[in-house]
């Protein structure tokens, strides 16, 4: 018998009226790497939790069909027994730490303590997994002082130390920045080579195409297909399920470059093998390289700005910058001073020295509340602001604060919700929504204040294809109305797709500033700021094209 066997699995959460899983049947062999793909709400997480016995053991609800893990029937085995066979790692690195241990070493040993593993064996196993996941330097740190990527690896280590046969990875990188994601992906690749069975839910299709033997495609709880990555990604109807094929597949499809078997390549290596079949680069690339209208009048003028939280540790150094109405992306590594800079623009932090002018007036004299109607700022974590029981009330809170009457606030709130595509959810409780939707609610709640400037901090984290499209539309429509958008981003493909101007920051100063074509061409600057070229741009370069390409 296969290691994992699923037969007609059905599940419904308590209080829900729709099946979260609807008739799933499959078998997974030991040692294989299976990817699970689908839009938000497809049932991916629920399936992982069914393998771990949490569905139905923890949630209760309605359950049908059978799941066997190594011959144990999941629904009838206690979770504490099943978790030694199948270990689960989920999205939020923060919540899956035990929360009771104050060093990384003890955190990883937590599960082993619960099973009564002898002390020497515990120390041996913890030391080994820490080495394997490159976190051995942090053994004595408090796990909550680590970065997201490090924290997620600690969570993974805590599961691996229990030596399960199967690892279930439920979007382990979706809430991390690219550097953190890369750290986790490197760890996953090491695991895959070790021969352990892995089941991974992931939005980054390039990664799945690279790792997986097979992919399971889910849609609204139903199993659409369970097949090889190239067959799945070559499907014509992929977009209907909210999935974007890897960029390599997309480009090959565009240029109709197929493999012998009629399928499209899914990885860089495969694509490069077919390099000769791509058409020659067109000389006339007017459409791609058009000069953008140079910025209009300045919105922010920053001169000789300095800032520090602790004296002697400057965060921003002698920064000079002018921001105009063009959509502007600020990129750079963590700790470059990006968030500090936008907080100063918003008036949340006061400069130590230097001036910041907003439309000619010094903002040093204004309070946050005075700027609230002019400059909107969407925080990274929506849960730091949501407090109303209806999406509509939440979105109306800001407009009412800045003096709009109720009717006007309601009108603006409706328009904002419509723009982010959540008008239907206006009466819902925000906390009943997914994280990705709550992030959009937070954006709408600031949009509704109709500010001249909109500042977004990492809007694309945790968004799927639809969410990113929505944010792109928001940026476009702000641009059309002549309102400026400033966004801090790590996702370079999104930057290339949506922004005209790119500011690269490192160590509290501006390294490069200009159109995206100009900035992404400066390879030495990108290297110094430790950021990558967009995937597409890199691919065309590898294919031997000379120009800068930002979309297919």
């Amino acid at each position, binding site marked *: 018998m296969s290691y994992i066997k699923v037969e007609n699995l059905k599940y419904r959460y*308590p*209080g829900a009226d729709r099946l979260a899983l609807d008739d799933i049947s499959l078998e997974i062999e030991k040692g294989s790497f299976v990817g699970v793909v689908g839009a938000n709400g497809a049932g991916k997480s629920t399936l992982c939790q069914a393998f771990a016995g949490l569905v139905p053991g*923890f949630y*209760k609800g309605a359950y049908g069909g059978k799941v066997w893990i190594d011959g144990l029937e999941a629904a009838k085995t206690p979770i504490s027994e099943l978790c030694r066979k199948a270990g689960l790692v989920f999205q939020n690195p923060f919540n899956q730490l035990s929360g009771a241990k104050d060093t990384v070493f003890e955190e990883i040993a937590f599960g082993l303590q619960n099973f009564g593993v002898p002390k020497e064996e515990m120390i041996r196993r913890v030391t080994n997994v820490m080495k394997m996941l490159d976190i051995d330097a942090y053994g004595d740190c408090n796990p909550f002082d680590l970065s997201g990527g490090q924290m997620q690896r600690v969570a993974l280590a805590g599961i691996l130390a229990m030596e399960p046969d199967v690892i279930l990875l439920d979007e382990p990188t979706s809430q991390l920045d690219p550097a953190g994601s890369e750290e986790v992906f490197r760890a996953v690749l090491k695991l895959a080579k070790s021969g352990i069975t892995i089941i991974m839910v992931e939005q980054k299709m390039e990664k799945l195409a690279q790792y997986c033997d097979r992919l399971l495609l889910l849609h609204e709880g139903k199993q659409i297909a369970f097949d090889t990555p190239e067959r799945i990604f070559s499907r014509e109807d992929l977009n209907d399920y909210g999935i974007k094929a890897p960029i390599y597949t997309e480009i090959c499809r565009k240029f109709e470059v197929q493999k012998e078997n009629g399928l499209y390549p899914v990885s860089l290596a495969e694509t490069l093998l077919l390099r000769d079949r791509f058409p020659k680069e067109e000389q006339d690339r007017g459409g791609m390289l058009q000069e953008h209208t140079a910025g209009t009048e300045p919105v922010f003028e920053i001169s000789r700005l300095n800032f520090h939280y602790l004296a002697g540790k400057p965060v921003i150094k002698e920064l000079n910058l002018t921001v105009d109405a063009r959509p502007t992306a600020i990129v750079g590594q963590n700790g470059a001073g990006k968030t500090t800079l936008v907080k100063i623009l918003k008036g949340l932090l006061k400069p130590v020295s230097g001036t910041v002018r907003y439309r000619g007036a010094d903002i040093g004299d204004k309070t946050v509340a005075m700027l609230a109607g002019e400059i909107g700022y969407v925080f990274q974590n929506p849960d730091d602001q949501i407090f109303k029981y209806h999406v509509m009330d939440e979105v109306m809170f800001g407009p009412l604060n800045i003096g709009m009457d109720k009717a006007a606030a309601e009108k603006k709130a409706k328009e904002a919700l419509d723009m982010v595509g959540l008008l239907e959810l206006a009466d819902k*409780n925000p*906390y009943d929504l997914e994280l990705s939707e709550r992030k959009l609610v937070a954006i709408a709640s600031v949009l509704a204040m109709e500010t001249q400037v909109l500042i977004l901090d990492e809007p694309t984290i945790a968004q799927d294809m639809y969410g990113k499209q929505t944010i792109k539309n928001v940026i476009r429509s702000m641009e059309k109305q002549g309102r400026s958008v400033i966004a801090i981003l790590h996702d370079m493909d999104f930057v290339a797709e949506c922004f005209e101007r790119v500011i690269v920051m490192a160590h509290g100063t501006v390294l490069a500033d200009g159109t995206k074509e100009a900035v992404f061409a400066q390879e030495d600057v990108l290297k110094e700021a430790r950021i990558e070229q967009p995937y597409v741009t890199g691919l065309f370069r590898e294919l031997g094209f000379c120009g800068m390409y930002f979309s297919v």
Partner: protein
Amino acid sequence: MKKIFYTKFNAATLVLIPACIGINYLGKLFAQLLKLPLWLDSIGTCIGGVLGGPIIGAVCGAANNLIYGFTTGDSITLIYALTSFGIGLAVGIMARLGLMKKFGGALLTAVVAGLAAVAISTPLNCIFWGGTTGNIWGDALFTATQAAGMPVAIGSFLDEVVVDVPDKVITLIVVFAIVKGLPNKLISLYEGNEKIESLD
């Protein structure tokens, strides 16, 4: 009776307790930050009582004071573990009787919780501090009663009433507002049916 005190002691209620203790702490912190003339340091205990029932509420309350007492050196807090225990228990019972579903019920719960606090704290105040509470308004009243020659117990009782009852009223209004807004998927963790329905 059995239904009122029925308590699930699983992972879900277990993690609820530290969260509630954290909420108590934050309530107090925000009240100080906004310079409000109230303590607001039992919001978490009351939420624990409403979601987990009287036993969990009482555990939240007692654990709150014990943990602070033993780690922050605030031994004064320690003695009032009994009071917090009583508040959590009272709110839990009232919630299980269905009173936290409506605003009026929440106010009644607040009065009951306030009186429970008074009943337990007054003797403690008399034994340990000669009747004072450490709150300016309450102690001013206490001083007045003593100046008028009333017994310590009555003065201390009045001192507690003016301090605790308004504090609990505001606390439970906040709790009522928060619990009303909690998403269904969370509430079902504490109240959900233990049975798994079959779809076969």
